[in-house]
């Protein structure tokens, strides 16, 4: 009987664990180690962040779902990996520290035959002074929508701001990215338009100044180089579309910006042209940069091999080409296909937890040397697809032996869809539905932008808004393993 340990219960981890449990049946054991008691459909946190949804609507308890699927669930966080075992045993193990299940703080060494690292990112608030509290958590100057709890907090702050505006005090809203190396601009984009929509609904839009600040190199970049969109029968670039949308909704913007410091009611920033400036705010939602969760790795003799297993940013090394060099040399084939660790073949990484070989966007930095560019987005769809491929590979390795063929899923060969919506009503909302293929540009197959323009497209309208609603219910249904869950695509 083999044991597969999955670290993390987000989109990638949950997909890996549930499919592996289904394919392996009761003959082998699947263990999920996640510090969270609840599963969270993150895209809908935007609606929680403006008070249109409750936390309960976007989360559910993991324990009953894992019990139903026959998965051993340990509410704990991974601390360190011993892929070669220790001096007393050759068996690989992971040290975990419980965060719940009445065993908080207890350390356990969990042996494994295979391990999938799908921890997702650490929200690295402390990368920007003042954005974090210095202890790894969000500071108290800004809000975030990265977790359901953050989103609930954000909605309370928004309500306070609305009350102040009703009382006659003008409020300045600053939304965007909190560092020059952030990803997830789409979430902030969605949030700023939801805020704008809420303020109009509350009748206080004229009392608010709203400003966008981000590390994109052009407005409408969304961290993926922009796309063409269809708007009411016309085809227009996402840059022109975004510019007119911001102008129409009277939202100011600043891009190519690295938020260098956050204080109470004020951010300092540096632009790509080297200039520095300040922006005041009453309400700010700034997305933090991502980093690996900081798992250590040790060799059999106890020596630290973290640098062998993980990249400097804390994400796990996989079968990617980390030596691609300068921008002009980047190729689609640099991107990983099997997500297997090159040193330890029983170790895989899925979702945000794997170390990308390099950026997707063109690397840029200010004259002072500060890098300011979006980092590779790894949204739910690629994470789910990668998670399923890794589950397939591990199941084959367990059932067919070490010579089994590994399943492949390269981000340079898969598309991604995303829906950014403003407003939540059935008839009042509007949304941009976007598809990108491939996620990582393939300059050899598609000379020019590196993308297939037939499948890299966006559309604006009410229908996109409905799709966002449908996705919300569909993915929570799937994650709860309700009947027919395997038929719902990633």
């Amino acid at each position, binding site marked *: 009987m083999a044991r597969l340990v999955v670290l993390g219960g987000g989109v990638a981890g949950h997909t890996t664990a549930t499919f592996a449990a289904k394919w392996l049946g009761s003959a082998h054991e699947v263990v999920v180690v996640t510090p969270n008691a609840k599963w969270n459909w993150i895209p809908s946190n935007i609606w929680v962040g403006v008070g249109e949804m409750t936390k309960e609507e976007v989360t559910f308890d993991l324990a009953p779902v894992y019990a139903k699927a026959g998965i051993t669930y340990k509410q704990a966080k991974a601390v360190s990996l011993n892929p070669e075992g220790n001096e007393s045993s050759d068996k690989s193990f992971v040290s975990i520290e419980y965060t719940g299940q009445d065993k908080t703080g207890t350390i356990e060494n969990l042996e494994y035959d295979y391990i999938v690292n799908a921890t997702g990112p650490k929200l690295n608030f402390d990368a920007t002074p003042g954005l974090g509290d210095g202890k790894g958590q969000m500071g108290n100057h800004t809000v975030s929508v990265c977790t359901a709890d953050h989103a609930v907090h954000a909605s309370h702050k928004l309500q306070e701001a609305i009350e102040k505006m009703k009382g006659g005090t003008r409020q300045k809203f600053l939304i965007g990215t909190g560092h020059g190396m952030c990803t997830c601009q789409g979430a902030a984009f969605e949030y700023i338009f939801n805020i704008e929509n809420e303020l109009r609904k509350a009748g206080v839009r004229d009392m608010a100044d709203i400003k966008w600040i981000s590390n994109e190199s052009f407005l409408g970049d969304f961290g993926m180089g922009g796309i063409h969109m269809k708007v009411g029968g016309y*085809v227009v670039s996402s840059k*022109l579309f975004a510019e007119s949308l911001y102008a129409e909704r009277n939202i100011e913007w600043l891009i*190519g910006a690295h938020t260098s410091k956050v204080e109470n009611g004020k951010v300092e920033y540096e632009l790509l*042209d080297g200039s520095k400036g300040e922006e005041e705010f009453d309400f700010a939602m700034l997305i933090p940069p991502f980093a690996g969760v900081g798992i250590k790795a040790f060799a059999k003799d106890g020596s630290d091999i973290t640098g062998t297993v993980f990249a400097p940013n804390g994400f796990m090394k996989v079968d990617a080409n980390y030596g691609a060099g300068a921008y002009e040399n980047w190729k689609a084939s640099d991107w990983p296909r099997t997500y297997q660790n090159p040193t330890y073949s029983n170790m895989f990484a899925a979702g945000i937890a794997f170390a990308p070989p390099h950026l997707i966007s063109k690397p840029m930095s200010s004259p002072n040397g500060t890098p300011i560019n979006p980092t590779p987005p790894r949204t739910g769809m690629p994470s789910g697809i990668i998670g399923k491929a890794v589950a397939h590979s591990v199941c084959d390795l367990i059932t067919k032996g070490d010579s089994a063929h590994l399943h492949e899923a390269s981000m340079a060969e898969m598309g991604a869809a995303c829906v950014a919506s403003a407003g939540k009503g059935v008839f009042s909302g509007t949304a941009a539905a976007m598809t990108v293929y491939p996620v990582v540009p393939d300059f050899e197959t598609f000379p020019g932008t590196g993308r297939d323009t037939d499948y890299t497209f966006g559309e604006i309208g009410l229908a996109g808004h409905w799709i966002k609603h449908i996705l919300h219910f569909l993915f929570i249904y799937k994650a709860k393993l309700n009947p027919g869950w395997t038929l719902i695509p990633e």
Partner: protein
Amino acid sequence: MIREIIQYPTPLSLEFGVNVRQFNEELFALIEDLKDTINENNLEALSAFQIGNYKNVIVVKKEDGTFLELINPSLIAHSGKITTDEKTSYYGDVSAEITRFEKVSIVYQDRDAKDCSLQAEGDLAVVLQRKIDYLFGATFIQKMSADERDKFESKLKYGTDVGMSDYCPTTFFRDKILKAINILMIFMLIVVVGSFFVKEDAILQTLWKYQSYGLIGTFLLHIVYLFYAQYEGKKYVSCSSCQIGNIIGTTVISLIKFTLLSIASYFIIYSSM
């Protein structure tokens, strides 16, 4: 080499600006072509897109006759608004009032791939904004207000749609198939309702006979619709793949109506014979 500038009514491509990755002879030749074309046509600036090249390259002729070469330019900050009467070589002599940012901050690379930046205001800011828009496949038409756009459209011989290369049409032939299906189903519904008032078996039998032909025909039309609509959708690259979902959805809804009609026909006409 002097290159031909793409002009209305030739549609602009749906491609969009590609970041220059290799700073080589090919790039330098493109810059020289842009300079030659600017001089020949006495222009103030040109983006590579205007001569059919999709690289993010803009060349501006300064007042002293020297050239400003901007590779991978990007507008990062702005302030103020300014409305001027603009012309662009794509639309020849037709001008329009466009509102743009008065001051802009632009980052770009020079021919040695060195990161540079510039602050521009007034006329230069306007020209740079217009040229950067070209790199995204847009002319100043996308910057116009609805009123200005209508006014501008009336000055153009073929309207503005012509400038949209291979735009996604709003009416399709497949809609006619759907209309035929709907008309057929309305007729069959009338037959079902009408059969309530018929007592003679012979007439009911005739009605049932035609109703069955109608039902079979409608079902076949659904299949034709499903396949033809997908074929038609794929002909236009600018129509998003969302339409495939729309087509399937429309077919399913129509088939539900069809099933209800078939059941009603069977139980009301056939059973009463």
